[in-house]
């Protein structure tokens, strides 16, 4: 692999890790299409490499969130029972699922993520910063476990973390405050993605030459991003990510329609 490719992978990792940490997304949904469309990786390899990158974001940022007591580790570990089962089953099934079906599912999720960031940007527009999180009681474990099973399945199938599925469910049905829901979802992604990644690794779908520079970039970016996050107004980062996701979504749709995904 050329030095230019290695540097490009580091840059992709650095920016998705950094912006992802500020915006509160894992960035898997950005990395997979980039690897497929610009680095020529087959879909299963792109997903395998993305899973490893997503573990890196989760590990780096949640070490800080857990330390600041924003993460609810008991809630996270309870829901991990469902995410890991979903991830394991989906990762085992993934090679037998039609590529075009996977690409359609992926594109839908990508556009849904862009939409959820639009909503987030709108909500945080005039929100004041507050560091205290009010006491809460967790409700509706069955709904939370159901959503986690689906989020885990999407992770094993598509390589993403599934935050945009888990966070609204924790917020609306389980009555967990937004900051705690986002931090806890992020915390769960490490274990969920590692479960699928072990299966992709065993199958030889984690391309080490691609994964190492990407992960190095992700670590540097997300450690920096998580430290800057409390000081940066996320609206601009959210805007940038919305543009990027919409553009990637359109590219994926174009490839699908022209039959460029096998």
């Amino acid at each position, binding site marked *: 692999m050329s030095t230019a490719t290695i540097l490009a992978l580091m840059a992709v990792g650095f920016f998705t890790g950094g912006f992802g940490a500020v915006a509160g997304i894992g960035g898997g949904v950005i990395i997979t299409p980039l690897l497929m469309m610009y680095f020529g990786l087959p879909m299963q390899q792109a997903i395998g490499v993305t899973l490893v990158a997503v573990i890196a974001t989760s*590990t*780096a940022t949640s070490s800080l969130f857990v330390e600041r007591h924003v993460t609810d580790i008991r809630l996270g570990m309870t829901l991990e029972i469902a995410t*890991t089962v979903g991830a394991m089953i989906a*990762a085992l099934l993934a090679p037998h699922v039609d590529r075009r079906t996977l690409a359609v599912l992926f594109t839908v999720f990508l556009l849904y993520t862009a939409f959820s960031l639009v909503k987030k940007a709108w909500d945080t527009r005039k929100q004041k910063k507050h560091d205290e999180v009010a006491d809460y009681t967790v409700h509706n474990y069955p709904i939370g476990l159901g959503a986690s099973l689906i989020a885990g399945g999407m992770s094993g199938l598509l390589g993403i973390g599934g935050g945009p599925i888990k966070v609204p469910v924790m917020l609306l049905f389980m009555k967990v405050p937004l900051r705690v829901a986002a931090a806890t979802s992020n915390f769960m992604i*490490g*274990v969920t993605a590692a479960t699928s990644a072990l299966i992709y690794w065993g199958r030889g779908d984690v391309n080490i030459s691609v994964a*190492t520079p990407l992960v*190095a970039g992700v670590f540097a970016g997300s450690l920096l991003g998580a430290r800057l996050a409390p000081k940066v107004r996320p609206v601009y980062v959210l805007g940038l990510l919305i543009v990027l996701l919409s553009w990637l979504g359109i590219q994926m749709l174009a490839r699908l329609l022209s039959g460029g995904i096998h």
Partner: protein
Amino acid sequence: MATPSNSSTPSASNSATPSTTNRTDVGADRVVALTLKIGAYLAFSLIAAGLVMQIWLPMGKRVASAGLLVLLFTPLVRIVVAGLQFAHERDWKYVVVSAVVLGVMVLAYALGIKV
């Protein structure tokens, strides 16, 4: 206007019951954060060192892959550490939760190497 009847029930809305103190288990938060931090920095150092070594030495790639493996197994170690901490706190419900999650991961690993 503050009335005596208001001040006589100060803890009605703010009492710390176990169900609302999930987040403030300082001991568990500390060991889990430390595990994640060690895993993250160890993986990052190995991968970065491996990438630099790769320029001159072929074994650099092995060092970098070792970093990826550290990253892959950090979540697994995190579960073991959390489970031990819950056992230390005699919070048996979450010892069971940790054991189940660990069991699923080990099963995935066992199935993964056979596929």
